[in-house]
């Protein structure tokens, strides 16, 4: 290998890539990040909210300087039908340590900030260049080919995102991921004055709201709607499982449009101006889709590795991407100390992940993707809850029924066995 080879080349300047570069450069490693967009974040989008814990450990107090939008203090979960909504609303006014916080953010700005942090400690970035190929020699990864140039490195960290074309090229990621492992997300960023956002969502100062919706937003398919409040905009979107989308009587963009026009949502965004329309695939199969993570001279991180957790009331990807970027960097540093960049030399990546929350959480929720395939969660249960509420709160002169009778009647419509089965499966998979 030539002497000018980098210690590591990172493909992709998203969260996993920038964090890996930061951790490596901070320890004096020679690292180059190659990003196909014109700047870090230019190809990236999030729902989105970042759970701070993993980045907090790497850059303590990051939220004081990073371009975050709002600190989430309000959590809402709503069962939505076409014309009703039943909401659980948690206001969290407790004092929390920084690792417990979560923040709404926008990736364009945030990723550029993170790139800046990595550059400060010596990482090099080139943007606007697409990596076309991974270079191998005798079955070992030795670098990348980008725009006709060949660049060599002792290790390549693939942080290329949810559609890992290079990981597929290496055969580490199975190319034909089945559609039921994936969901598609679409988002509108809607501009509103800061005072209006605070009023409509009952927020003080830099507080923010995170709001998830199950039921009609994804047209009865696996998925849901979301709203996150930013400083002067609202992130509003839906996520829909690709399994069954062929039979849907609504397109994904139409689902988003109908969600926006729902009588519960419409007043919240009234008068807003569309700033951007974005889309992204979400890897939802959990542990079942995690590829081969390490091979000779190469590691896979973040979305490319399928690191994502959708538990229904929380959706996580960015905190996992950050933790995996850090683990990959540490593994490269360990390999560098031994001068062994083989799969064996890099194997601490796997063990670091196993020891961290990342694999523990992925394992804990490994039954959940299958449970989320239960269509009743997204069509019958939202209706059942709405029907019960309707009978409780609507007084029209019809003689009242005991509450237990009302409850039993609606449970019977779904089927007691289904309720017991889903209840048991649900509880045991979380």
């Amino acid at each position: 290998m030539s002497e000018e080879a980098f210690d590591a080349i990172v493909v992709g300047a998203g969260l996993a890539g920038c964090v890996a570069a930061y951790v490596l450069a901070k320890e004096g490693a020679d690292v180059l990040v190659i990003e196909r967009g014109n700047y870090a974040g230019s190809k990236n989008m999030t729902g989105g909210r970042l759970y701070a814990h993993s980045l907090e450990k790497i850059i303590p107090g990051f939220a004081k300087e990073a371009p975050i939008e709002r600190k989430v203090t309000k959590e809402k979960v709503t069962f939505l039908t076409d014309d009703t909504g039943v909401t659980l609303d948690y206001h969290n006014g407790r004092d929390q340590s920084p690792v417990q916080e979560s923040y709404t953010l926008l990736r364009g700005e945030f990723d550029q900030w993170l790139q800046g942090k990595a550059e400060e400690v010596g990482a090099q970035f080139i943007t606007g260049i697409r990596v076309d190929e991974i270079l191998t020699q005798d079955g070992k990864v030795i670098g990348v080919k980008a725009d006709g140039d060949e660049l060599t490195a002792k290790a390549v960290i693939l942080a290329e995102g949810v559609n890992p074309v290079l990981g597929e090229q290496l055969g580490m990621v199975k190319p034909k991921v089945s559609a039921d492992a994936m969901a598609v997300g679409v988002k509108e960023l809607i501009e509103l004055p800061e005072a209006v956002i605070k009023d409509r969502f009952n927020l003080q100062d830099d507080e923010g709201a995170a709001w998830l919706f199950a039921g009609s937003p994804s047209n009865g398919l696996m998925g849901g709607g979301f709203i996150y409040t930013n400083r002067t905009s609202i992130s509003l979107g839906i996520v829909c499982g690709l399994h069954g989308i062929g039979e849907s009587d609504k397109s994904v963009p139409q689902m988003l449009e109908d969600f926006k026009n729902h009588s519960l949502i419409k007043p919240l965004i009234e008068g807003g101006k569309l700033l951007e329309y974005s889309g992204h695939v979400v890897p939802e199969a959990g542990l079942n889709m995690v590829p081969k993570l390490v091979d000779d001279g190469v590691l896979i991180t973040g979305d490319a590795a399928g690191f994502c957790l959708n538990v229904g009331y929380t959706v996580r990807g960015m905190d996992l991407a950050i933790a995996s970027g850090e683990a990959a960097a540490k593994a490269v540093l360990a390999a560098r100390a031994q001068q062994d960049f083989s799969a064996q030399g890099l194997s601490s990546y796997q063990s670091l992940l196993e020891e961290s929350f990342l694999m523990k959480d992925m394992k804990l929720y490994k039954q959940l993707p299958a449970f989320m395939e239960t269509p009743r969660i997204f069509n019958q249960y939202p209706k059942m809850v709405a029907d019960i509420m309707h009978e409780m709160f609507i007084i029209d002169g019809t003689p009242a029924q005991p509450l237990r009778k009302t409850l039993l009647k609606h449970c019977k419509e779904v089927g007691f066995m289904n309720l017991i089965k889903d209840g048991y499966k649900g509880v045991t998979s979380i």
Partner: protein
Amino acid sequence: MTEAVNVDVKLGVNKFYVDEGHPHIILKDNPNIQEYRKLVNACPAGLYKLEQDGSVRFDSAGCLECGTCKFLCGETILEKWEYPRGTFGIEYRYG
């Protein structure tokens, strides 16, 4: 239910650098129509269109580069799927 969505208007607010003459997605000549219908529903950018006469119309210019079509239909529809060359394609100003 609301009016039929016009995705093109939404894409109009986005910033794209179109790589003229180098489409990064190319469909097969006679794509499987059953498979194609999935993409009519799933593509966030609504790029997979079906005309009144049943013919297909596709333009990769408004692509958000999400990969949905690749995951959902792969080779049944696609001759080629790659990311646009460096600097081209969608540029999220907010994300």
